[in-house]
């Protein structure tokens, strides 16, 4: 008996974005596994490669369950996909180690924020995968946190390179959650797939990254309100953001 296909474009698009971003993160990390500043950093990067590719491998098969996926089977295999649901900053190889760290610190943490909101998901495949993803992402964040501090505290050109590397990932990561009225994320929230709205996801993300940036003296256009919630003090470039592929430009 053939299972009935799920007709849910919102969930399909977000799962596609999660899968594509993790697949490309793994591939981009892999390139720099050989060019890391130290042997230890290279091994840690290689471990992250395995984790990210593994996460992507558990997400792509879910797309087959959707009517949107069955309409174009070629898009279900990462090796034959030509749709790009990844953030634009992943379109090219990292220019240097600080770029890897910026992606690790910002985009990876943004995706982890989503999985944390899906721990009690009404969509069983996400509910089942979230604990393992979150467990593995703990080391990823520790790696990013340590390297952001090292690069920032090194000063001079090294610090400047980090600052320049963080900028594009900052906007992409914040935009990935969508505006607070983003139809896809709102539907996921209303259906119980995730437990909070886009603005709260963004606030949780900022709560994770801002203490690290503050410790090394990197200023951001954000502030904490009376309840301790982090909020942006600048507008995001929504006019340049594609709500289906969840990317800028």
């Amino acid at each position, binding site marked *: 008996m053939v299972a009935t296909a799920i007709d849910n474009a919102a969930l399909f698009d977000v799962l596609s974005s999660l899968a594509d971003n993790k697949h490309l993160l793994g591939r981009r990390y892999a390139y720099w596994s050989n060019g890391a500043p130290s042997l230890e950093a290279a091994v840690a990067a290689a*471990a992250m490669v395995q984790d990210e590719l593994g996460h992507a491998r558990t997400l792509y098969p879910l797309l087959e369950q959707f009517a949107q996926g069955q309409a174009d089977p070629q898009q279900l295999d990462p090796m034959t996909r030509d749709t790009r649901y990844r953030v634009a900053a992943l379109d090219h190889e990292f220019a240097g180690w600080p770029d890897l760290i910026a992606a690790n610190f910002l985009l990876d943490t943004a995706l982890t924020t989503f999985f944390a909101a899906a721990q009690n998901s009404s969509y069983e495949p996400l509910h089942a995968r979230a604990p393992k993803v979150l467990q593995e992402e703990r080391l990823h964040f520790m790696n990013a946190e340590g390297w952001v501090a090292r690069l920032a505290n090194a000063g*001079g050109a090294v610090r*400047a390179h980090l600052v320049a590397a963080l900028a594009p990932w900052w906007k992409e990561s914040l935009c990935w959650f969508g505006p607070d009225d983003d139809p896809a994320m709102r539907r996921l929230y209303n259906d119980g797939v995730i437990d909070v709205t886009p603005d709260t996801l963004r606030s949780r993300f900022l709560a994770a990254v801002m203490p690290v940036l503050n410790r090394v003296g*990197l*200023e951001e256009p954000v502030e904490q309100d009376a309840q301790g919630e982090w909020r942006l003090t600048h507008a995001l470039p929504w006019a340049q953001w594609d709500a289906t592929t969840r990317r800028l430009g």
Partner: protein
Amino acid sequence: MKTAAKQSAATPRRAALNETRVWQVYARQKYDEPLHEIGNIVADDVELAKVYARSIYDEFPWIEMTLIPRDSIVTVIAS
């Protein structure tokens, strides 16, 4: 994104990133065996040291792993 720190004198990137602090790694697979040295890693930051130890020494399902900075080890009898 703005920086709050002063610009220090230019430093070669590799030299600025070289890590020098050595940590001895101890671990055990079972509760009835003692912690024993399994190797070492180099990291100047304790959080990165934890990441590196977990990433490099992942060949066994350790139940406990500990890091000790080599520079904190006190020799009582030198070999």
